[in-house]
């Protein structure tokens, strides 16, 4: 028996990066990585992008056999954790097995938000996209369909819509908000994105609520609050929710963790999509790749490190839609004004979101150059004169007046 086993629940990006970090730091005891999915660990971002558009099936797995051997991680796949006995320090699975842990990392991620209560949601050809299995099913199904309805213009919905257009499907997107992306990015960016999709042939049904799916065994129509749309398949992209908690303890839109990745239960850490964590005085919840990767690594290092290191990471994500790359840095639930740099609506530039004089966040549209400088500005929530920030002739690493 290993004296100090570390159990990681969830072999997504956070869990996998945690395991790698433990070995990198020289941890030699057992690492048990448990996941209900049989295909993990793999990378999810390609699933809505090149996975759907490529002729072949792109490789998404994170570790090849060599790496797996080198990491010497005990993978328990197809295994669902049902609960954690914190008094006896044991992880319990649905098939009745138990693992003792010295330290435990919960990295259970998110799940697709389901529309099961809507009439007809069980019909054939209604898809979600979260797992590799989902993506394979979807990729197979779309070979034979023409007209697809995408429900929800979140990132996954928007990316799937773009991918399907790229392979010649006719795509209608139903979105409950009159202007998707607006709450996060403001009116200008939202209008640009709506326009971008329109340019590529997407038909929007904005401000409409899905009421029912019709069909005998397969879906044939989507009934919305305003209209009825004929279709051969439906893809539901109505966002994600944190996986249901398996351990007791503070859970609010994910396990609530401190800056070291610790939950309020001794020796239990959590990382990635399944957490709420402190960022500049806010408790935030982030469902993006960069955070999952870094958070998993940080939690792992803190489990075995003698001096815990606080997590410091600017929330970040990218999204590829057609040939447009969007990158967003920071956290800005509200802002006083936007500073435009370059021509984001013209297809290349940035929008910064400023509150009380401080740069809280930035959206970059086909404008990767300078993003590392922007990340430092946003990390410090620096005060930058708007006229400098908005002047593309001044490089971003020179716009601040502060030291």
């Amino acid at each position, binding site marked *: 028996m290993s004296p100090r086993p570390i159990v990681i629940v969830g072999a997504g990006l956070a869990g996998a990066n945690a395991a*790698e970090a433990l070995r990198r730091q020289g941890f030699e005891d057992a690492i048990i990585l448990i996941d209900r999915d049989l295909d993990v660990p793999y990378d999810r971002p390609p699933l809505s992008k090149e996975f759907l558009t490529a002729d072949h099936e792109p490789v998404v797995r994170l570790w090849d056999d060599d790496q797996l051997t080198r990491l010497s991680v005990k993978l328990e796949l197809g295994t669902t954790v049902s609960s954690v006995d914190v008094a006896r320090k044991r992880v319990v699975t649905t098939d009745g097995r138990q693992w003792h842990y010295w330290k435990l990392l919960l990295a259970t991620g998110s799940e697709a938000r389901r529309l099961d209560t809507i009439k007809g949601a069980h019909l054939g050809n209604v898809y979600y996209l979260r797992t590799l299995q989902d993506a394979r099913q979807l990729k197979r199904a779309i070979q034979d369909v023409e007209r697809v309805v995408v429900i929800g213009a979140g990132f996954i919905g928007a990316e799937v819509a773009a991918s399907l257009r790229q392979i010649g499907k006719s795509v209608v997107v139903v979105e409950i908000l009159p202007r998707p992306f607006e709450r996060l990015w403001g009116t200008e960016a939202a209008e640009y994105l709506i326009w971008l999709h329109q340019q590529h042939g997407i038909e929007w049904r904005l401000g409409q609520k899905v009421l029912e799916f019709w069909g005998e065994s397969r879906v044939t129509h989507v009934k919305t609050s305003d209209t009825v749309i004929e279709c051969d398949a439906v893809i539901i992209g109505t966002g994600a929710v944190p996986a249901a908690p398996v351990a007791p303890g503070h859970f609010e839109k994910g396990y609530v963790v401190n800056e070291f990745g610790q939950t309020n239960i001794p020796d239990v850490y959590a990382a990635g999509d399944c957490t709420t964590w402190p960022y500049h005085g806010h408790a935030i919840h982030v469902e993006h790749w960069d955070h999952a990767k870094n958070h998993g690594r940080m939690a792992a290092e803190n489990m075995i490190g003698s001096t815990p290191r606080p997590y410091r990471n600017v929330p970040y994500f990218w999204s590829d839609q057609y040939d447009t790359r969007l*990158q967003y840095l920071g956290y800005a639930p509200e802002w006083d004004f936007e500073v435009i740099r370059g021509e984001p609506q013209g297809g290349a530039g940035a929008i910064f979101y400023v509150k009380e004089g401080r740069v809280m966040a930035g959206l970059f549209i086909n404008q990767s150059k300078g993003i590392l400088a922007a990340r430092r500005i946003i990390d410090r929530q620096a005060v930058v004169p708007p006229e400098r920030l908005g002047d593309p002739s001044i490089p971003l690493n020179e716009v601040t007046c502060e030291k």
Partner: protein
Amino acid sequence: MAEHFKVDDHFVMAGYSRELGDGEFMTAMVGNDPVLVARLDDKLYAVSGICTHAFSELADGELEGTRLYCALHFACFDIRTGQVLEGPAEKPLKTYEVIESDGQIWIQKA
């Protein structure tokens, strides 16, 4: 040393020496491949300009001393050797022979 190096048709011109200050990098095309050339403490280094992780252009990234950062998922490479210093990249960047002669910078083709 550089002056005696024979520049022949195995080399492509990257640019002029005066265009590349210390601690800076420039991009050049070698065939169809973008290559980054950097000057650090009077030495020149050249590496592939495409990130080995998901093929983003490293010219969009940033050079901090010897550390070259990718602007898409922030992988970090040692520009002198192409080695990965931080993930998500796993494979090193290809390096190129680079020479400076008569105020010009030349990169050796693959």
